[in-house]
């Protein structure tokens, strides 16, 4: 409905002066409310709104897109010549120069500058003013500065869908390249368009990976061949092993056949020491450890089933999550399992049954990482559930040292290759801890959970990988990466002491068990035989006597142990967690309860 107001004026009246006059208001139009229109609206709840006389503003955050930059060189060519002179023409340039040389201003300038210059030049020749004094003095150890790690670079997954960095491997020679394996470990979370690639990064260039490795299934673990720095071997999510040669491009040179490979994701693969330098072995949660020769990946050279009953039964096998192999002990290797047990195996054993040598129990959850101390190969470090534990090979009952229960899951660990008493751990809350045989909180590396960790061979740099696909490169402070005096001997003494303590505890427990068994055997004999009164009396007295005897013995031993430990603690000058003591006491108490 259009509202129109028509206004007419007689033509003869155009141009005349306006005569204004007053008149009462005239109703031109009256629009009545139309209730039918009201049906199309919904009434709102009355709300209190406080108006304010100011401009309505809204807060808005803007983040500029990351600028992709690339470096390139520029070629400088001669320039600066006046317009009429062509720098290529020798004649013109020479003529120009001769003209300048004749200029008087030039002569005066040069004479003046020459004298200044001579003065300085002679000065240089007279004495070396920048001589280094005190060059020979060694840098003394600085005071206890808080150790730190500085983030140098972050290498982000260039794909849209971010995957976890599940493994990292440093290039064996130059340490300038880092290979990272990307995959999504969460069950069935990988989407169809998730990229399968894993990348090799050059640490100088965090913008673009140097090379991409294209497997058919995402890689979970990746290792450079320590002997041949061009080859890599990787284990993938579908259980296959792939072998790359970086000189040949991104596609794998060879793939293992699906039937002969693992049936579960390959969690760890390690190169072996061999004459040909082409052997590797891999572990997976399907319970098998397979040996491969990378020249012929169609079937594994050897197979081991991690069945603790030594029957080779695959259904009862433990799933393997981590592997450990030390080149100095080529016949032994260790496997960390999902069930929290570390299995130590001998490679050279003849039968499969003999392959599994012994087991170490102690973790409540999967043993995510396992590594021997490079300086003390008899001791190894494991990480799983919320603790990191250090074990001695001889003591199978429990670890000799362990950290407090941390607040979040520990995912990976490694010893520092330079300092024997330092190891690094990464946790699910994104924190990288360094432990100088006692955990001290490290810097928060990133907000996302950290999954993998690898220290470079010279001990200065460390790379850790996160859940969102970012690999962070950190530089460790010099305090943590230089070997201190006496460190090796102190650490050796510490390990020995702890091992001895565990041995004593073990022996004590065995003794108690033996006594218990022999006494129960004795009392059974007596009851059965219905022997003399004396014997029966002994039998009746013995339970109470046993208990009180055991109690007394127990307290004596604990006291002796405490005394000994106090003395030892005074000797050493490194801190240690006191909860070990409490745990020991709890263990002993539990034994007591069992006996009763």
């Amino acid at each position, binding site marked *: 409905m259009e509202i129109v107001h028509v206004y007419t004026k007689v033509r003869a009246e155009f141009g005349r002066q306006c005569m204004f006059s007053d008149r009462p208001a005239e109703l031109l139009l009256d629009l009545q409310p139309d209730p039918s229109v009201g049906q199309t609206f919904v009434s709102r709840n009355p709300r209190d709104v406080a108006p304010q006389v100011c401009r309505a503003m809204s807060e808005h955050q803007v983040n500029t897109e990351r600028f992709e930059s690339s470096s390139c060189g520029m070629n400088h060519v001669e320039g600066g010549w006046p317009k009429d002179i062509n720098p290529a023409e020798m004649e013109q340039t020479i003529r120009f120069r001769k003209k300048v*040389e004749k200029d008087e201003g030039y*002569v005066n300038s040069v004479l003046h*500058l*020459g004298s*200044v210059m001579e003065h*300085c030049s002679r000065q*240089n020749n007279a004495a*070396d003013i920048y*001589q280094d004094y005190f060059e020979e003095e060694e840098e003394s150890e600085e005071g206890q500065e808080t150790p730190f790690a500085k983030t140098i670079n972050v290498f982000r997954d260039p794909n849209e869908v971010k995957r976890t960095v599940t493994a990292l491997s440093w290039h064996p020679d130059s340490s300038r390249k880092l290979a990272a394996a990307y995959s999504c470990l969460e069950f069935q979370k990988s989407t169809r368009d998730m990229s399968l690639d894993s990348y090799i990064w050059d640490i100088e260039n965090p913008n673009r990976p140097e090379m991409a490795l294209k497997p058919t299934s995402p890689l979970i673990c990746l290792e450079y061949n320590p002997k041949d720095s061009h080859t890599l071997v990787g284990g993938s999510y579908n259980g296959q092993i792939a072998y790359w040669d970086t000189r040949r491009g991104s596609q794998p040179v060879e793939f293992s056949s699906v039937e002969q490979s693992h049936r579960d994701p390959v969690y760890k693969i390690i190169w072996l020491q061999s004459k040909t330098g082409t052997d590797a072995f891999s572990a997976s949660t399907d319970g098998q450890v397979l040996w491969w020769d990378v020249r012929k990946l169609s079937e594994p050279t050897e197979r081991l089933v991690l069945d603790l009953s030594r029957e080779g039964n695959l259904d009862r096998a433990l799933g393997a999550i981590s592997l450990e192999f030390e080149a100095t002990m080529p016949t032994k290797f260790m496997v960390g399992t999902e069930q929290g047990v570390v299995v130590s195996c001998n490679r050279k054993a003849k039968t499969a049954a003999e392959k599994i040598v012994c087991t170490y129990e102690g973790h409540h959850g999967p043993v995510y990482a396992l590594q021997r101390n490079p300086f003390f190969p008899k001791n190894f470090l494991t990480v799983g559930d919320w603790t990191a534990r250090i074990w001695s090979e001889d003591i199978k009952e429990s670890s000799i040292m362990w950290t407090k229960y941390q607040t979040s899951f520990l995912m990976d660990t490694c010893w520092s290759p330079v300092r024997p008493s330092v190891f690094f751990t990464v946790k699910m809350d994104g924190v990288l801890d360094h432990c100088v045989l006692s955990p001290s909180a490290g810097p928060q590396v990133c907000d996302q959970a950290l999954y993998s960790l690898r220290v470079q061979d010279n001990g200065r740099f460390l790379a850790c990988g996160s859940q969102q696909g970012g690999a962070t490169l950190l530089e460790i402070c010099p305090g943590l990466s230089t070997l201190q005096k006496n460190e090796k001997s102190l650490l050796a003494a510490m390990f020995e002491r702890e091992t001895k303590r565990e041995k004593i505890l073990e022996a004590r427990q065995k003794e108690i068990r033996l006594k218990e068994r022999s006494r129960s055997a004795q009392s059974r004999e007596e009851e059965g035989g219905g022997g003399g009164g004396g014997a029966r009396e002994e039998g009746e007295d013995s339970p109470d006597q046993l208990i009180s005897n055991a109690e007394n013995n127990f307290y004596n031993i604990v006291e002796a142990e405490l005394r000994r430990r106090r003395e030892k603690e005074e000797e050493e000058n490194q801190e240690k967690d006191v909860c070990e003591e409490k745990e020991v006491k709890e263990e002993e108490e539990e034994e007591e309860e069992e006996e009763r």
Partner: protein
Amino acid sequence: MAEVEETLKRIQSQKGVQGVIIVNSEGIPIKTTLDNSSTVQYAGLIHQLVMKARSTVRDIDPQNDLTFLRVRSKKNEIMIAPDKDYFLIVIQNPSD
């Protein structure tokens, strides 16, 4: 003209001097004892450096001006004497 030659010869004959270049205010090398490509490189780069150094000195104190610039590096020392219209650049190997 002859004095200029003499001065330059004297500087050149000092112990450790590797090269002498005279550059004008536009960056054109007038006289040099090095080969052309090095001369051009030095002329271009040092020109910018001197401009920057001079402006730095004058920004801090407008009454001040740059009189001499020494750039000491691991392998040698570059000495630059600036003037209104010309610079004199001498590359010397210091006395060790």
